[in-house]
């Protein structure tokens, strides 16, 4: 049944949406990196963005919390809580507190593990020592890192292994108790064991957070995500629940991609 050029699953009204994009166009100079990407991202689910390199999925992800502000030209609407994030009235700093992001390469700050987490909290006005300590513990536990680092919170975060560092970055992001977590190929720099740990962490986090993850690792997308969006040449060509995307793709290009005939 791979006859369609494009297939976007429609949700019924009972499903609550975390983010909705409309008429999104993203330009790098003259080059249009995203030309058609109307997506609805459901709450408390993991949505995976897949696609070949250069398909625009990372660009799309980074635009969601306006990390592309100085890099690319973003046109269109990004709706979050009835607010268009892509407008001038939005305070990006307050917004990013709600929509956090974790990157491809682990980037812990050159500070202690404890400070890595409290740094942003203090900046957002949380200075009570007790609350800080609590948040550090909860976030590290949620990120499944607590057991490994609880005795060395005051040591430099730079000494952590890649997998630990990435989980620290996740802990750092969720310590702010955001709504949404955007993950940009978070496991691509990690070994298989660390990746497995990370995936487990993400699935657990789903209860409290909406997660959007960009990944090149198709089995990973199949394992952990609830919905999958396939990007190709700046367009979302297929968006469906993950199971169906991987077992019964509606678009030929998607079939080619997941079966390895493409990219």
């Amino acid at each position, binding site marked *: 049944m791979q006859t369609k050029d494009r297939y976007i699953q429609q949700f019924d009204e009972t499903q609550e949406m975390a983010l909705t994009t409309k008429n999104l166009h993203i330009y790098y100079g003259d080059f249009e990196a995203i030309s058609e990407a109307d997506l609805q991202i459901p709450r408390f689910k993991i949505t995976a963005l897949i696609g070949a390199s250069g398909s625009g999925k990372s660009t799309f992800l980074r635009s969601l*919390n306006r*990390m592309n502000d*100085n890099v690319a030209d973003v046109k269109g609407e990004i709706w979050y809580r009835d607010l268009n994030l892509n407008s001038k009235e939005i305070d*990006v*700093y*307050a*917004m*990013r*507190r709600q929509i*956090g*992001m*974790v*990157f491809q*390469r682990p*980037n*812990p*700050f*050159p*500070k*202690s593990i*404890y*400070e890595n987490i409290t*740094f*942003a909290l203090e*900046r*957002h006005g949380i200075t009570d020592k007790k609350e800080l300590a609590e948040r550090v513990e909860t976030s590290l536990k949620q990120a499944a890192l607590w057991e490994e680092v609880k005795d060395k919170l*005051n*040591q*430099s975060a*730079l000494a952590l292994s890649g997998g630990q560092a990435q989980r620290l*970055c996740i802990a*750092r*992001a969720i310590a*702010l108790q955001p709504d949404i977590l955007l993950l940009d190929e978070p496991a691509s720099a990690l070994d298989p064991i660390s990746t497995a740990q990370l995936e487990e962490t993400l699935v657990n986090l789903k209860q409290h957070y909406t997660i959007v993850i960009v990944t090149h690792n198709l089995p990973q997308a199949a394992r952990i995500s609830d919905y999958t969006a396939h990007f190709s040449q700046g367009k979302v060509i297929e968006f469906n629940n993950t199971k169906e995307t991987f077992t019964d793709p509606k678009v030929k290009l998607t079939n080619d991609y997941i079966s390895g005939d493409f990219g």
Partner: protein
Amino acid sequence: MNAKRYDKLATGLLYTIAGIVVLILLLLLGFIIIRGLPQLSWSFLTTPSRAFTAGGGIGIQLFNSIYLLILTMLISMPIALGASIYLNEYAKPGKVTSIIRTMIEILSSLPSVVVGLFGFLLFVVQFGLSFSILSGALALTVFNLPLLTRSIEDALKSISNDQRNGGLALGISKWETVTKIILPAAVPSIVSGLILSAGRVFGEAAALIYTAGQSAPALNFANWNPFDIDSPLNPMRPAETLAVHIWKINSEGIMPDSSAVSAGAAAVLIIVVLIFNLLARWIGRLLFKRLTAGS
């Protein structure tokens, strides 16, 4: 086999070259220190200089040099820090930015005597600061800013963008990301940039001849009130520095022991730069540990 032979030959050549560079420095240092060492004594380091009789020391000049260096750094450091943050973090790459960079770069390759004369006409005469430590510090700031800005900018540039993204993604302002994360991470390279410029400031003579002056009036080291004219801390007093002193006695010194004093002063200058260098490295390492590992 030929390639391997070449490899060995080239490696040997490189070792020789590095050896020659080290040798040049050792010879230079050796020459200066061995000539100056016989002069060095506690009294040479602490007594005031004498204009035309033997037995003068360099106490006041040494103090002046250090005080001037500190003042200069106090003035130029924040400005250079701000400017380099703007250049590296905020300025959009383009024509204007590149023109500004070029201008700063040109300033750094102007001979210091031009900066000195400019400082003389602007600070000493126009602003009425007269020949004073303050005038000297301002002139040295002009002379020092381009170097410092450049080295801090390079230090900032060397910190990966991942760190900046990390801060921004947590909803932290760019300003705080830069000042609280990027800067501390860049401290070691900033410190080594600081050493380089401090060394230049410490040894600078031409820019100071017309601004901080070439006289070292007697100081009362028991009076630390910066508003008294004979206080060492008074920034409005004229102050001959060590480098200016060397220049002066080399060129116009009429004391009978001028060459001895000049050799001694040169040795002291080198030794102070050396100590300063080591100290700054140590502090840089310490700071880095402190700032990155937390308390």
